[in-house]
């Protein structure tokens, strides 16, 4: 049986059991990459981490549960943030802040009722947007402009970083939604279906959004290069 088919077939029962579709999709992908036999099925492995139980424990700020959730989701959140802001330290701060926001929300009983991963990524997206807004008000000088490294031995790496910086700068010019979809598709490597689940849109809408985002990014890169 194809794993995607299995996931869709089990959606109803999984949701009743406290799992959401996104987790199932993502888990199926993990099990495929980790070469876990597909016959064991997603549900069997997912008993290792029951999101509903984890959320219940999070509301009590149970330290073990906090640690488990952190270990499970922090790399993913960090990658997402790092993709959008480009800076390692800022990404670290923002990703940590996302988990603190999760704890605050759970303490106030306003945290996610399900789909913890989706809540974390959405919160990370908002945190990055906040960061960009703050940066827009207080623009900081780019490191490369003030401290150019002209060592011949690392020219290629400098070129690569400069390209990354240009793309990063162009990415920052896109709308938050366009940045979001590119971060999910090309930063996180999520499939079209996964991205649609994150964005709560249908697949065709995500395809269109993705196309416009890439076209816009291409224009921005061209403008940056021209400047």
């Amino acid at each position, binding site marked *: 049986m194809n794993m995607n088919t299995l996931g869709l077939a089990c959606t109803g029962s999984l949701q009743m059991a406290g799992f959401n579709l996104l987790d199932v999709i993502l888990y199926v992908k993990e099990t495929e990459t980790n070469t876990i036999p597909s016959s064991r099925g997603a549900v069997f492995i997912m008993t290792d981490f029951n999101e509903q139980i984890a959320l219940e424990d999070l509301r009590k*700020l149970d*330290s073990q549960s*906090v*640690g488990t959730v*952190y*270990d499970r989701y*922090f*790399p993913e959140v*960090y*990658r997402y943030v*790092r*993709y959008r802001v*480009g800076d*390692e330290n800022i*990404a*670290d701060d923002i*990703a*940590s802040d996302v*988990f*603190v926001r999760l*704890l*605050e929300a759970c*303490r106030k009983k306003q945290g996610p009722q399900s789909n913890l991963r989706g809540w974390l990524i959405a919160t990370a997206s908002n945190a990055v947007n906040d960061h960009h807004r703050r940066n827009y008000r207080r623009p900081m000088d780019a490191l490369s402009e003030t401290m150019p490294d002209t060592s011949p031995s690392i020219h290629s790496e400098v070129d690569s970083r400069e*390209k*990354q910086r240009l*793309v*990063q700068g162009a*990415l920052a010019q896109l709308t938050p939604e366009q940045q979001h979809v*590119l971060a999910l*598709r*090309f*930063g*996180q*490597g999520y499939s*079209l279906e996964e991205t649609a689940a994150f964005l709560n849109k249908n697949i*065709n809408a995500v*395809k*269109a959004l*993705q*196309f416009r985002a*890439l*076209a816009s*990014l*291409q224009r921005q*890169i061209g403008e940056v290069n021209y400047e």
Partner: protein
Amino acid sequence: MNNLYDILEICLKEIENGADVDTVLFRYPELAEELRPILETSMQAKMLAAADPSPDVVRRSRANVMQQAARMREEQLWPSRRLWSVPLRRAVVSLAVIGALFMTSTGLVQAASTTLPGDNLYPVKRTWEDVRVLFTFNYQAREALEVAHENERLDELNDLFTEGRSAKVDFAGTVMSQDGDLWQVSKIPVLISAGTDLGTQSVKIGDAVRVRGVTQSGGTVMAEQLDFLPAGIALPDIEDDHSPAAGQEKPEDKQQQQNSGEDGSGEESGGGAPRQEATKSPQLESKIHEFSRDGVVDSFSGNTLVVNGQSMNISSAEIKGTPKIGASAKVEGYFNADGLFVVTKIEFQSSGSDGGGSVNEDGNKNNDSNDGDSNNSGSDDGGGNDGGGDNSGSGGGGGDD
């Protein structure tokens, strides 16, 4: 356009699986020009994909998050304690205080009810009176209560006089007489000194005033301040039976009454006296300070002698010397409840001028200067005395006529 989006997605998947852009676009030559920059951009976008965080970053960030969780756990515990404990503690303390007050208030008020000014619990008594007035909403009942309280002030004063205590007092009353520095305010002798604050208005007899002062051991109040009271304010009922042993009469008063009945010229002491005498009591008058003063006899008639303009009753006085108009007199006596000065002892001293008459022990006037004939004077006086049988001297025969 949907086709374009679908083809883009197919191309992206093929590139992800290792195909290059040219190979992918070879299948879609009509869209190649449009898709090429998009696909190249997608590859640049993918170039930004970050690696997993370093272990150091994870460890540092994890410690931060766990620390925040611990802090929130602590806050979650403590606010709940504060939420419950502080209001609960306040409620318990408040209830305890209210309960203690409730338990002791009755006894406290009871104990305070007999206190006098200067006692430790006296403020409790006054406060309780104020509270009672405050929570008496019926106008008539409130007025009666205020009058009762003012009567209580007078009773307290009398008690202070009896005990000879000096204490700060204040009471309301009507000015009944003004004899120099000695006034009568609701039967209470009040001494006015130079330091007494009388305000701007001049106080007259009949004015309602509030007296603040200090009781003297002699049975007077040394006034420190007199304030006019507005019309309608509660004043002590001086005819009320708040006076101790009301209805009892002083022996001197009985004698005075008898004399007034016998003496036709004694209207001043006897005419209007009976109603007032009913409220007089030996106890009250015994508390009243006796005054001693010197003066010159202005006139005398029957039991009434006028010294320095002050009328005084000499019906029960011990008389020494011969009374004459213009003679110096040393007078000892007290003010009775009506504000009349009752002489207990009077001593006349002869002076150079002898223009007045003399007073016999019955108070009858013998005007020697006008009538050298004692018989005539006796007959005159006897006629005015309605058969005063005690007349002595030569006039007695005339009286008998």
